[in-house]
């Protein structure tokens, strides 16, 4: 395997030597036709190789391939969609919303949209983060890519250096066709409705404020509050209350980059829910990560970025009526390299060591390599 990687790397180097400079100049061509209306196209891709330590076979996967198509009707009104192919065979719509610009500080958005929580859910294009896979806090605690149907507002208050977003969304589905959906191992993840004939029984509120008034620093505070959805509100215990709070920070000073995120989720009435459904949903889920990276400038726009990330997350931080499962209490160290060969193209490799809280348990080690594209 190591040989294959080396050969691939050499092959890539020879291609990269002729890499084009100044892709910025072409950016405007994304908007086909003229300035006032027209179609925008774009997309991103994440192609992975994962190899677990031991005797397991490796896995090669076109994990995500997403096409962005937008249409601008006029300066006020535009429509944006992202159509996703996951693992080649599953088709999803990741975003599909209309934007109405009411004034310089206010946009009204409606449709299928990303829930603003932490960093990755909104900024999930693979060239914007380090590591082949997204952070696991953004898988088990924030169920990225988390999108819901709703309506909301968003805008920048440039005097105050603030960005605000507020939405009313439908939410996670906890109960359908007489059975529970949510479970202990990944919390709310299975409950995402993804805009596919989604059920709404209760509205949920989502909001985020970002502050970027200090040079190089961006701070975010997100909140999500409400109740899960059920297809039968008469069944007691089929819904749980959700309150999720997130804090995130990104700091960049010249070639140095730091980021971190903390998410905590409280779920209400999980004891009744678990009794009804036979599931093992926790009542508190939380996690954080912190990451340090340094960009070495190579020739042209190429960059080589070594990084290290520490993550800790637990989908059974607290439980009601059931014993917490310690295998859900995990921490991990990830060390890796990102080699950006163009503004929107990178090769990545990392090594991941995951431990759980069960005493005497073995750590799980994985080598990951991949390609990240965004255009």
């Amino acid at each position, binding site marked *: 395997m190591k040989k294959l990687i080396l050969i691939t790397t050499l092959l890539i180097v020879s291609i990269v030597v002729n890499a084009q400079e100044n892709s*910025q100049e072409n950016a405007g061509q994304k908007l086909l036709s003229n300035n006032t209306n027209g179609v*925008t196209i774009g997309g991103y891709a994440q192609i992975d190789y994962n190899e677990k330590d031991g005797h397991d076979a490796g896995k090669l996967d076109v994990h995500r391939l997403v096409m962005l198509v937008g249409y601008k009707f006029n300066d006020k009104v535009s429509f944006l969609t992202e159509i996703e192919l996951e693992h080649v065979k599953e088709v999803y719509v990741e975003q599909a919303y209309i934007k109405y*610009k009411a004034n310089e500080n206010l946009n009204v958005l409606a449709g299928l949209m990303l829930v603003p929580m932490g960093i990755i859910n*909104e900024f999930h294009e693979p060239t914007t983060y380090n590591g082949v896979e997204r952070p696991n806090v953004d898988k088990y605690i924030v169920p990225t890519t988390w999108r819901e149907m709703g309506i909301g507002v968003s805008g920048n208050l440039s005097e105050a250096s603030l960005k605000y977003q507020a939405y009313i969304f439908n939410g996670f589905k906890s109960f359908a066709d007489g059975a529970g959906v949510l479970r202990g191992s990944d919390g709310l993840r299975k409950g995402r409705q993804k805009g596919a004939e989604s059920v709404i029984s209760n509205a949920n509120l989502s909001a985020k404020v*970002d502050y970027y008034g200090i040079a190089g620093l961006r701070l975010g505070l997100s909140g999500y509050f409400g109740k899960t959805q059920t297809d039968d509100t008469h069944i007691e215990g089929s819904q749980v209350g959700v309150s999720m709070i997130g804090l995130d920070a990104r700091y960049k000073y010249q070639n140095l980059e730091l980021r971190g995120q903390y998410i905590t989720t409280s779920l209400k009435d999980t004891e009744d829910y678990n009794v009804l459904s036979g599931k093992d949903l926790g009542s508190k889920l939380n996690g954080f990560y912190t990451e340090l990276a340094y960009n070495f400038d190579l020739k042209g726009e190429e960059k080589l970025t070594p990084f290290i990330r520490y993550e800790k997350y637990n989908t059974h931080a607290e439980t009601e009526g059931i014993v917490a499962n310690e295998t859900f209490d995990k921490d991990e160290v990830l060390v890796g390299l990102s080699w950006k060969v163009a503004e929107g193209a990178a090769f990545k490799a990392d090594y991941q060591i995951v431990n759980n809280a069960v005493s005497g348990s073995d750590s799980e080690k994985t080598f990951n390599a991949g390609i990240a594209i965004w255009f």
Partner: protein
Amino acid sequence: MIIQKFTVVFLAFLLFNNIPSSKKIDKLINEEIKNVFQLEIFQKENIEASEELKSMLPKNFDVSNFNKVKNGDANIGFYYVGKAFGKVDYFDFIVIFDNDLIVEKIKILVYREDHGGEIRSKRWLKQFIGKTFENELIYSKNVVGISGATLSVKSMTFAINNVLKSVGVLHKNKII
């Protein structure tokens, strides 16, 4: 129920709002010039360049958007109005120079898309003040970025670099 109320409130709100038309953009430009030069009355005069000179300027620089600001016969400064691309749409900006070709003010006149609007921040734009055609702007070296608005930041940096370069060419050829 809540959703209905919410919708009604916002539909009402929208009726009272409007975005800049080209007339409003002209008004915004005039206001910025007034503020920078502390003048109530001034004249704008387009800068003319030969075809040969135009071919020496960066591709994205449109000399017909570059103007002198005059107070009677006296030249008091210059300004350029340009366009740059964010993630899915263009935004408009103005750069105002004093008589020594030093950047006095930069402002985003119209930002259209939802993504990347952070670059409208006054504090962020301040870093371009004082630059001249002798400066080359480099993202994350002498231009501080904004996480979450990288595309717009880089695009703006590229556009301002082009403006500065063009001013340099025009100056060397004694047009300004």
